[in-house]
């Protein structure tokens, strides 16, 4: 698999899959998609990269260790439960704010989105961890 073409493809595809995965993740609240599917897609790019080169290079490309992705994911999920407390609502209540951003229009941000981001990161980290470890064997 370690042909130049594949390596080139993997390198070029990596940002594409990442952007695509973010898109899928963000769309998820209204259309098919969401944290799990997004995270999977993000991981897919790196898996392909690791197949083209090797896992060490892929991990380097990732910059953070997969474990930290996992920790970040769990942390976001955990933090997303906190706004409800400050708002005086029961635990895990979704708290929303609306932002008017030029060009993009009305953007609705809420703790469920943050939670989904946590899912996205965690799934990303988990899949990379599993696949990389198995590949290294």
């Amino acid at each position, binding site marked *: 698999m370690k042909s130049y073409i594949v390596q080139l493809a993997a390198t070029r595809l990596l940002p594409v899959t990442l952007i695509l995965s973010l898109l899928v993740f963000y769309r*998820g*609240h*209204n*259309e*098919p*998609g*969401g*944290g*799990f*599917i997004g995270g*999977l897609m993000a991981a897919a790019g790196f898996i392909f990269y690791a197949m083209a080169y090797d896992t060490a290079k892929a991990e380097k490309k990732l910059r953070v260790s997969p474990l930290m992705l*996992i920790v970040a*994911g*769990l942390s976001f*999920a955990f933090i997303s439960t906190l706004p409800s407390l400050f708002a005086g609502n029961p635990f*895990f209540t*979704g708290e*929303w704010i609306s932002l008017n951003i030029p060009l993009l229009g009305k953007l*609705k941000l*809420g703790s*469920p*989105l943050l*939670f*989904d981001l*946590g*899912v996205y990161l*965690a*799934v990303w*980290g*988990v*899949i990379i*961890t*599993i*696949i990389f*470890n*198995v*590949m*290294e*064997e």
Partner: protein
Amino acid sequence: MTGILIYLIILLITALLSPILIRKGGKTAPWLLSMVSAAGFAYLLGFAGFISKGNALNYTIEWLPELYLNFSLYLDGLSLFFALLVTGMGSLVLVFSGNYMKPYPMKHRFFFLLLLFEFAMLGLILSGNLFTMFIFWELTSVSSFLLVGFNHEKPEARNAALQALLITVAGGLAMMAGFIMLGQMAGTLEINQLLQSGDIIRNHPHYLPALLLVLAGAFTKSAQFPFHFWLPGAMQAPSPVSAYLHSATMVKAGVYLLMRLSPVMGGTPEWKYILTITGAITMILGGYFAYSQTDFKKVLAYTTISALGTLVLMLGIGTDISIKAAIIFLLVHALYKGALFMIAGLIDKSVGSRDLRKIGGLSKVMPTASLAAIISLISMAGLPPMIGFIGKELIYEAKFALPDIGNLLLVAGVTTNVIMVAISLALIFNLFLGPLKYPGEKPKRPAFALRIGPALLAGISLIFGLFPARVADFLLSPAIKSIRPSIDSLKLSLWHGFNEVLLISFITVAAGVVLFLLYRKVNPLLTHFNTKVLTFRLADTFNNGLNMFLYLTKRKTSFIQSGYQRFYLMAIFIMTSVLAWYQLIYTWPEIENISFSKPGFFEMMILLLIVSSTLIAVLVRSRLAAILSLGAVGYGIGLLFIIYGAIDVAITLMLAETLVLVLFMVVIYHLPKFANFSSKASRLRDAAIALLVGGFMTGLVLKAGQLNLNPKISDFYVENAIPLAHGSNIVNVILVDFRALDTLGEITVLVIAAIGVVALLKLKTKKGSAT
């Protein structure tokens, strides 16, 4: 009464501190411990005047009143009598042990256990609630276990301890059930209230089972036939333990319980027959085996069994005079048997043997001890002027007074007593008088601490025999009145004129002398007979039974816990099928109609794909094909989801399926090929089980639509996804908002699984480091 509670606590604390005291205190330590016990004796004796006026004391701390369980103490004539016995004997035994246990390196633990036992026994006696009594009862079993196994490096000691524990605890558990039933009958287990509820209990339909259960406890503890065999085994314990637990106190606990409960449960024909028959058998058997033993301690153990039988017999007869006889005989026996066991220990220690055939004429080397022994033996033989004589006379009188089975019992009683006389004489003339014999070095004169106990006890036997009336008024009458308040006060005297009782006593002694003269000839014969013909021993049977049981469980274990994974799964599937099929058939009539829609072409194709891939996966030999077929099944299901509008699920399923397939491929690359392991028969059997499970699952799915309790909660999600949760992908909104907690758990599972994969693949510990 709080004073008595405080004394109990002091006793417990003394027990806890005793190891330190023994280690640090040197020679005086046992004396100090003995003083604690003696102080208890003196303190309790102070109550005698008050109690003898017919008073009783009660003290209750609530513990678990819902189940009639309280911590209660109760002091009346009966418990005072026993409590004095326990503390009095305790102080003597402690002094005796001080010297006897000197060479043992673990003697500090011995004293702890002995005092713990004394605490437990005293608590048992003073309990004012049957459950309190049960708690102490078990504590005596446990401390007895630890004491019998004190020489724990000997396998026989461990075995004897185990046997004694299992039998007494088994009885104890039965007794507990009996107590629970008593509580449910009477609504209380407080002794002072139970004493008033005798009629309710005796007329209750559960009376007989409750009685049997309680008797199981009393009989095991008091070594009645057929549970008696643990007692000779318990002779593995150091001699002070035998003197204390296995003659004077613990084995009397069962008798005490019978006395305590005789106003509550006694007097019925059931009570009478069970007790007299068991008692009589135990009495005779004990006598016979005592006569045919050669080990001094074993002789004493069997005479103890015989005596316990006599006591149970007396309580079974249940007439006024038999109860009197029981109380007196109990005291008599405790006095002489305690002394004799200590002497047995003393002989063992200074001569190094207890074999009656090898030692003799000990009065030449140990005059005081021998004198004490002889006095005690005369008491055991029931000869005047000892208190034993009075006891025996009363027993005869009691048996005379019984009209129906009295004659039979009298014969049994006389036989037993003849044996007792013979044994006593044999021991007196062979062991203590006569020519000096010893197996090893010349025995030394035993220390003062060893002699004082037996001497005191023998002296008391003598004094009580000479002046019985005092004891009767002060101690025995109140005890008897607690058992049966209607009895007039007890009049005791050594001489009560010529009557048929005295005549029988003469016959007994004469026959006893004859049997004694035959002893040297008969004893070896009987020993021979016992080893050759009477090879049946309950203790061995018990052990064999235990071994058999262990063997069977081992066989059963290797059958049940076979180690074959698939049999475990098979059991689960079969059991599930049985239950599910039963319920399916049972609830089938409730089903009204099964709704269904018409399948379209695409669905049919997909179903066909799923079915055929499934069959391939099951039947194919190649691993790769099996895995790929599994993937096809997954994708097929994904397509179904798409058709039925579950797009997110479909994408997720297919992605996950793909990932699993990739992983599978990577892993499978390293593994060997399938070997064809199973036979055709087992494949058929497994297929049958598989169809059973699949069949009920189909049934369940068909049935699922039957009970439709609308509205479904999902209607709420559909309505509120946008207005309240700001999202139009309802499934996703459910995942991140409505049921976000599920998703939180879900990613936790993922994280844990990922870490698990890392740990599995990366962590390689040394073999055997898992500790």
